[in-house]
């Protein structure tokens, strides 16, 4: 690339005098306001540099306007950075420039430029730096930008600095020479240690139709074809796909390179965190993932036009194994729970979040924000949270139930849906087992929340236990299967918030304690336990109930009301031993269920 640039320039300087068409440009910053780029183009200007950044904290306020409208008007645009080497490191300034300008360094643009000149106030650069130090700073900036964009930058300098303040190694980069002699048709009076030049800034005080006030004027050193060769050497556009993106431990993923370049692609370099092998140089590698986790993939592509890279964070997911039964009440203090995974098709989308101030029977749950707080229409966003893998191979009666609270928006247009799927191949394919939305999902019997208020005033908040409902999910199909994971998916209609709590998944009836009179509507688990356990009542029970616990002497040691859903019982203060529990209706004392309880 460097040789190519120098060759083009050297070639161009030979043909300039015979080339009737001089390629003129301007360079602008916020000092020029917001030019009318169509008029600038009509005035015969072919290219324009726009200031993107200065130092590590000044982004030119008109850069995006200039890039967008200059391109739209048909100008070849470029970005430059005003350096403050007396203040910052080269890497910090390069990264700041990249953060602002990289998006605009693409096919058919000017090479990025480093503007090295005396700071607006204070001593000159030469009082801070030796030529060696200044060259090191500039080369580090150039290399950092090149590594990120794949495009070789050029250096803006005046004749004095170009002649005295750089080492010869700096001439590997093209020179944008400041020489305001008012003549666009002559080469610069000097190019310092550079043998040639790419651009000449021939006026600091030019006037161009479409630009208010004075503007810097520039000229390219060469023919139209040389200009096109310089500016349209497209950076590589790196992209790839993977199939599948979620795999069981020990399985392989096939990666397919989708990168493009106007040049000829000459190499691929992959890095697979957590994969085997961890790196690859082939275009379409196959990688094995053995350990559960979430892994990034990086691809670097090199072509004759340059190189570029892309890293997809959290791209490959290998689920971990969980243990049945599950009673997930989101009480861990962090989210998602251990072994659970938030699958985000688009990282900028809304996602399941941890609620820490309310829940079905505690102060924690998970919720999907729906509309509230979202000024952006999120209709259609589908976000999943995956459970770990569970083994149902010896299950006798797979069951799943959970608590949900939802109230639709008062505007029927904005209806949300909650779906649940299971997968038996670690998330590669899914089967739906639950889908409720709108009034069907509603747990309050009304739709009074506005759900359309960005200040949150109309957002649904379950005010009490009665706003929750326990829903059962038929997962009989997973009986006898291993590697079963579930996906709880929000399908937003930009309506309202929904809340989920106490996700229960069981496969096999407890066998360690005999004679537990357990019906399908009552679950007591774990058993044996350490004094803390759950009593889950299905929504088939319509009467209010209470639990009574007796010791072996027949003394009642605990009693409390229980309701549909999951009820937490804590016997921590009681001695280890065998207890009897009875669940009866509050009215009439009718027996619903009873059994033994072992506390260790």
């Amino acid at each position, binding site marked *: 690339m460097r040789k190519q640039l120098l060759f083009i320039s050297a070639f161009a300087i030979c043909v300039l005098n015979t080339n009737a068409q001089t390629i003129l440009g301007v360079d602008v910053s916020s000092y020029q306001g917001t030019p009318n780029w169509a008029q600038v183009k009509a005035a015969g200007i072919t290219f324009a540099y726009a200031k993107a950044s200065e130092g590590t904290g000044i982004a030119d306020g008109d850069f995006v306007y200039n890039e967008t409208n200059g391109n739209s008007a048909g100008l070849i645009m470029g970005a430059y950075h005003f350096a403050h080497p007396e203040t910052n490191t080269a890497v910090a300034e390069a990264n700041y420039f990249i953060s602002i300008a990289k998006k605009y360094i693409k096919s058919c643009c000017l090479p990025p430029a480093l503007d090295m000149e005396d700071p607006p106030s204070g001593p000159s650069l030469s009082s801070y730096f030796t030529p060696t130090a200044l060259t090191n700073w500039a080369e580090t900036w150039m290399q950092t930008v090149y590594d990120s964009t794949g495009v070789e930058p050029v250096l803006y300098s005046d004749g004095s600095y170009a002649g005295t303040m750089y080492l010869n190694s700096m001439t590997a980069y093209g020179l944008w020479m400041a020489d305001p002699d008012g003549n666009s048709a002559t080469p610069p*009076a000097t190019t310092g240690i550079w043998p040639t030049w790419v651009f000449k800034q021939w006026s600091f*005080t030019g006037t161009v139709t479409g630009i208010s006030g004075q503007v810097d004027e520039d000229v390219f050193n060469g023919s139209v074809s040389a200009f096109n060769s310089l500016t349209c050497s497209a950076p590589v556009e790196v992209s790839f796909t993977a199939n599948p993106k979620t795999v069981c431990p020990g399985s392989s993923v096939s990666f397919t390179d989708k990168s493009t370049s106007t040049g000829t692609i000459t190499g691929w370099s992959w890095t697979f965190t957590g994969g085997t092998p961890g790196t690859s140089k082939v275009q379409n590698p196959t990688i094995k993932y053995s350990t559960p986790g979430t892994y990034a993939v990086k691809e670097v592509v090199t072509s004759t036009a340059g190189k570029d890279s892309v890293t997809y964070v959290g791209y490959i997911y290998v689920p971990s194994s969980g243990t049945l039964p599950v009673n997930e009440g989101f009480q861990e203090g962090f989210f998602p729970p251990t072994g659970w995974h938030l699958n985000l098709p688009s990282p900028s989308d809304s996602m399941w979040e941890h609620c820490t101030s309310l829940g079905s029977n505690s102060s924690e749950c998970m919720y999907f924000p729906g509309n509230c707080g979202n000024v952006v229409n999120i209709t259609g966003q589908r976000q999943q949270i995956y459970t770990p893998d569970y083994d149902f191979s010896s299950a006798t009666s797979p069951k799943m139930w959970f608590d949900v609270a939802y109230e639709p928006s008062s505007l029927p247009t904005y209806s949300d849906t909650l779906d649940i799927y299971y997968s038996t191949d670690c998330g590669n394919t899914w089967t739906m087992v639950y889908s409720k939305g709108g009034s069907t999902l509603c747990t309050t019997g009304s739709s009074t929340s506005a759900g359309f208020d960005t200040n949150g005033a109309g957002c649904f908040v379950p005010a009490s236990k009665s706003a929750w409902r326990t829903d059962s999910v038929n997962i009989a199909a997973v009986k006898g299967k291993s590697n079963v994971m579930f996906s709880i998916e929000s399908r937003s209609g930009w309506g309202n918030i929904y809340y989920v709590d106490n996700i229960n998944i069981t496969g096999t009836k407890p066998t360690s304690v005999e004679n537990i009179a357990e019906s399908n509507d009552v679950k007591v688990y774990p058993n044996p336990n350490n004094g803390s356990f759950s009593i889950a009542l299905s929504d088939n029970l319509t009467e209010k109930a209470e639990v009574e616990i007796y010791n072996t002497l027949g003394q009642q040691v605990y009693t409390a009301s229980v309701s549909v859903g999951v009820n937490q019982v804590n016997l921590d203060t009681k001695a280890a031993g065998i207890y009897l529990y009875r669940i009866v209706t509050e009215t009439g004392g009718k027996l619903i269920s009873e059994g033994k309880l072992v506390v260790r």
Partner: protein
Amino acid sequence: MRKIKLLTALLFFIGLTAFGQTNSVTGTITDVRLYNEQYAMTVNGTNIVLIVHNSKTGATFEINKEYSDLLIKSNGKYVLNPKYAGKTLIITYQMNGKGWNCIQTIEPSKQ
């Protein structure tokens, strides 16, 4: 439609005045220094730039003829001509393409 035209005219006027405006400062010239191959100086707290025009016959300054001797060469570099030291001057300047306040004219102050 009429309002849009009025707004457009107003924005155009603001653009002209903001970016093409000539300003002035009155005071004595201090702190003459080399600045990106030009000369920067301070007048009453305002940093202004005197553009150098290099030609085959030597350097001249882009300034009104009466003050073309504002800077004189001394020991290989340009310094303020002593005859202007301490003199109160009215200096007009205009922002150039690089955002510098470039001197346009210099006149003696009548005070």
